[in-house]
């Protein structure tokens, strides 16, 4: 198990560099957008990875609420943290692509708005975790995660209707994707998933160790009060 981590890290590094090569060199250049389109290979896999991590956060939070498992709490924390990072990547790469292609940085389009709201909800989740005190944190966070997850379909429907009422001036992606582009996209997603898993894994180990140390220090303080020494 101890060796698994560096081996997996190495594999991820290889896969990421291969995916980078595919995206920047091997993939065909898009007809109308040109090289700017290549950001798509980072934008879309990041989005899918972020959404997957938020889903994991929800499942782990329900798991915590039902069984009060410490493991579930750590998984929820880690998936929210890494998810927010990937979601930030999506929100940064999106406008960089949109400016030359659509001519605007931002529009209140369905997917853009939903991603932004998700980002806001999970940042609120992390802020709550940071500010709540000690033993109550896991419970409060899990409750908020349930509220956040239930909010997502409502956000979806509200923006869907909002947008159909006021059609946006920009043209959606549409059209079919070259099979080679699909190939590059999927390889990139696989690489990003491995990377997300690697980061989450290392963060999980760190958080677990941190909690064990805190527990040990608390026990020591109980056993040897400083005044008596």
């Amino acid at each position, binding site marked *: 198990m101890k060796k698994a981590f560096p081996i997996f890290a190495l594999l991820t590094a290889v896969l990421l560099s291969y995916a980078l090569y595919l995206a920047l060199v091997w993939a065909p250049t898009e007809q109308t957008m040109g090289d700017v389109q290549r950001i798509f290979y980072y934008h879309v896999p990041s989005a899918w990875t972020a959404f997957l991590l938020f889903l994991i956060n929800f499942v782990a939070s329900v798991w915590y609420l039902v069984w009060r498992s410490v493991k579930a709490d750590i998984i929820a924390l880690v998936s929210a943290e890494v998810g927010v990072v990937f979601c930030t990547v999506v929100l940064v790469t999106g406008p960089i692509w949109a400016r030359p292609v659509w001519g605007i940085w931002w529009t209140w389009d369905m997917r853009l708005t939903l991603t932004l709201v998700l980002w806001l909800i999970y940042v*609120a989740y992390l802020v709550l975790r940071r*500010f709540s005190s000690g033993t109550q944190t896991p419970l*409060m966070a899990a409750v908020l995660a349930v*509220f956040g997850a239930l909010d997502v379909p409502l956000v979806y*429907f*509200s923006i869907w209707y909002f947008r159909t009422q006021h059609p946006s001036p920009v043209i959606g992606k549409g059209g079919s994707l070259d099979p080679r582009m699909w190939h590059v996209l999927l390889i990139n997603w696989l690489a990003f998933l491995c990377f997300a898993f690697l980061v989450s894994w290392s963060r999980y180990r760190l958080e677990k160790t941190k909690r064990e140390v805190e527990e040990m220090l608390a026990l020591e303080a109980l056993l040897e009060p400083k005044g008596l020494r």
Partner: protein
Amino acid sequence: MTSLAAITGVTLRKDLRLEWRSKDAINSMLFFALLVVVIFSFSFNPTAEESRQIAGGLIWVAFLFAAVVALNQTWARELRNQVLDAYRVSPAPANALFLAKALGNFVFVSVLEAVMTPLFIIFYTLRALGPAWQLIPVAMLGTWALVVNGTFFAAMSIRTRSREIMLPLLLFPISIPALLAMVEATSAILTGEASAKFWIVLLAVYDLVFTMVSLLLFETVLGAE
């Protein structure tokens, strides 16, 4: 005396009586909302036609900010003298306490809206071009959407450091669909250009979902050590 409705009623009456005598929450809320209205009016200074377009957003943002003032005080009184701990050991159902607090906040925010709406009409020379009666279900459902989650998150944020700032940080992101529905429904009614039906249904669904989940999880939050 032990049924949910009876205990809810007693707690609600107690809160309303306390508020009636002290007028803490309602006064601070009213003055705050008044300030927001005046500042908005200064900074936009719109014509009657523009007002119809933007009033929906202005009204609800003002009410949202003002509601946070009241919501933050929801549980503050119960923290003194360990009243909340007494609630936790008492056999009274936790949801009765939650419902009483949420209904109390609903009353406070409704009073605020009833007082502030005429002011908005004066400052922005508003006249609805659509069916004005629909503003009543929008206001009621919208207010409940704010207070049910607000009361719940206030109970969570009193457990954190920096309580007062925590509530809006939790409440605003979750309230985005409700706020969008309230603003769009109000604008649709004021301009008379579109139907507000979808938004009213969305608000009703939002209220239903979050009332259920709040009732389901409140005991867990109240009992958290």
